[in-house]
């Protein structure tokens, strides 16, 4: 990483430039620690203070005694295992449906030249222009009574899984990746007599691992973070994902227990991020630079 940026390397090499650089560097470190890490620190330590200590002014920077009752109480009282499990089921199903159906559709649009393919793609991309949240009410009514088959999907994880497939961004990401695969490899497979499904499964998918990873992460994160849609769809408390349950229960629960539950709710996504940070950050950077 020695590409030339705004400030020239020769300026940075001078003593004054060096001093300025390290001042800015320290400033940014402090700012980031204060703005982004400290709130998270405050949440985690808040969960481990006693109820008296949390309400104290001025507050203590470090808990006097480290309690873990908040976590155990949250786990039992707020039925976190059930809500976490609901979230996992919803996210995993949405991921699987999206991966199978979006990949198949993107492959068809990219490689199989369906009649009216351009129109279909246009219709899909047009949904990117439509503010999705503004359509939640008619979407809710559709899910409550599916046209033609008149089935009610409310309180069913399918209400998360199927709408998740209608994700134009992920589908377009996949299609664009498939467009760039080398033509001769696919043609060679076709000459060998491989069917379309075989080509998709044994050639296209193995070559598309990076984009499949990015789409997977986007799919999981989207479901885990969503609030308004699951709030509408799951009126049954036992079916609610963690995000909805947290808000519903937040009014009637002790503060330390709530904060502990918030920490628990954050752990899966933060862990996922820390493990895959390289890929996630690369995915965001790449996905946007061209788009």
């Amino acid at each position, binding site marked *: 990483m020695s590409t030339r940026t705004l400030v020239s390397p020769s300026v940075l090499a001078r003593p004054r430039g060096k001093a300025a650089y390290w001042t800015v560097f320290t400033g940014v470190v402090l700012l980031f620690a204060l703005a982004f890490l400290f709130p998270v620190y405050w949440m985690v330590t808040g969960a481990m203070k006693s109820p008296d200590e949390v309400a104290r002014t001025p507050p203590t920077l470090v808990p006097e005694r480290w309690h873990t009752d908040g976590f155990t109480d949250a786990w039992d009282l707020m039925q976190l295992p059930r809500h976490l499990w609901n979230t996992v089921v919803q996210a995993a199903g949405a991921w699987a449906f999206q991966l199978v159906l979006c990949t198949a559709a993107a492959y068809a649009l990219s490689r199989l030249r369906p009649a009216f393919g351009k129109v279909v793609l246009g219709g899909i991309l047009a949904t990117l222009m439509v503010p999705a949240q503004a359509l939640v009410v008619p979407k809710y009514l*559709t899910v409550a009574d599916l046209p033609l088959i008149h089935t009610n999907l409310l309180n069913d994880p399918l209400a998360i899984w199927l709408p998740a497939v209608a994700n134009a961004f992920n589908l377009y990401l996949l299609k664009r990746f498939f467009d760039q695969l080398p033509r001769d490899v696919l043609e060679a497979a076709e000459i060998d007599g491989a069917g379309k499904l075989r080509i998709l499964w044994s050639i296209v998918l193995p070559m598309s691992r990076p984009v499949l990873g990015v789409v997977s992460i986007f799919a999981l994160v989207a479901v885990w973070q969503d609030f308004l849609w699951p709030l509408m769809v799951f009126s049954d408390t036992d079916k609610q994902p963690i995000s909805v349950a947290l808000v519903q229960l937040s009014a009637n629960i002790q503060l330390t227990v709530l904060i502990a539950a918030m920490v628990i709710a954050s752990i899966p996504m933060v862990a996922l991020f820390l493990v895959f940070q390289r890929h996630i950050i690369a995915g965001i950077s790449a996905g946007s630079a061209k788009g």
Partner: protein
Amino acid sequence: MTRTAARRTAPAIAVRPVPAPPPVGGRGRRRLRDQLQAYGFLLGGLVCFALFSWYPAIRAVVIAFQKYTPGSPPEWVGTANFTRVLHDPEFAAAWRNTLTFTLLALLIGFAIPFVLALVLNELRHARAFFRVVVYLPVMIPPVVSALLWKWFYDPGAGLANEALRSLHLPTSDWSNGADTALVSLVIVATWANLGGTVLIYLAALQSIPGELYEAAELDGANLLQRVRHVTIPQTRFVILMLMLLQIIATMQVFTEPFVITGGGPENATVTVLYLIYKYAFLYNDFGGACALSVLLLVLLGAFSAGYLRLTRSEGDT
């Protein structure tokens, strides 16, 4: 990779030097089969888009002109839903709040990520660390960040006022005051979402060729002039796209007001989407909710079209 592929195909070509004759039924049927196959692959995705994207968009417009109660046949009521919604005192408040929120989010949430990205791009150390830290709040579920900041804004032992007190500054009502509630929510939304914007800017900044800066420097441009004449024009497209996306996203803000303020105090934070939610799930008035949705759709659609048109024509000249 290509070598093995080539080697694998070679014997096949040797065995079948002439392409197989077209199957019985000729070209037409062959093409029909291809088409059926292509649509077989498309089907699942297409059904989902039709059901959950296209159909609801049409349905919003239809229900906006109906009296709709789930379970009973809808009745056509003309523009009654629109007039009722327009006469709701909360309607004006919701639009005013939403527009103010969007404007504040632009003022606060737009310059900060750009400047942060600009500075981060200059730093030669701990680059991965900065990227991870700035993106960390984005990975915290929005509901959790909203609840977290609700606790920070607590008038009693909230962190926000404690910080002010320790600096000997006057305390504020934050999300509990009618005047400060909206700004408080903008701060939460900015904190929670800024990471993504910073990363996208960083990627854009890295694609600027270094020679441009060198040339500008040779011409005697100072730091700010280089930002103004090199960095901003080079990242113009990304800036304009992100601005549009941010405006569209903030016009649909819901989680923060719902969780932190519940629309209060005195309707100071009721947003359009919150009002849509209220019409549908509190008043059971789906016609009114859809009328509001249509208004929001039309406004955002017109805005996006105008925005794209303006920015594009500006780019041509």
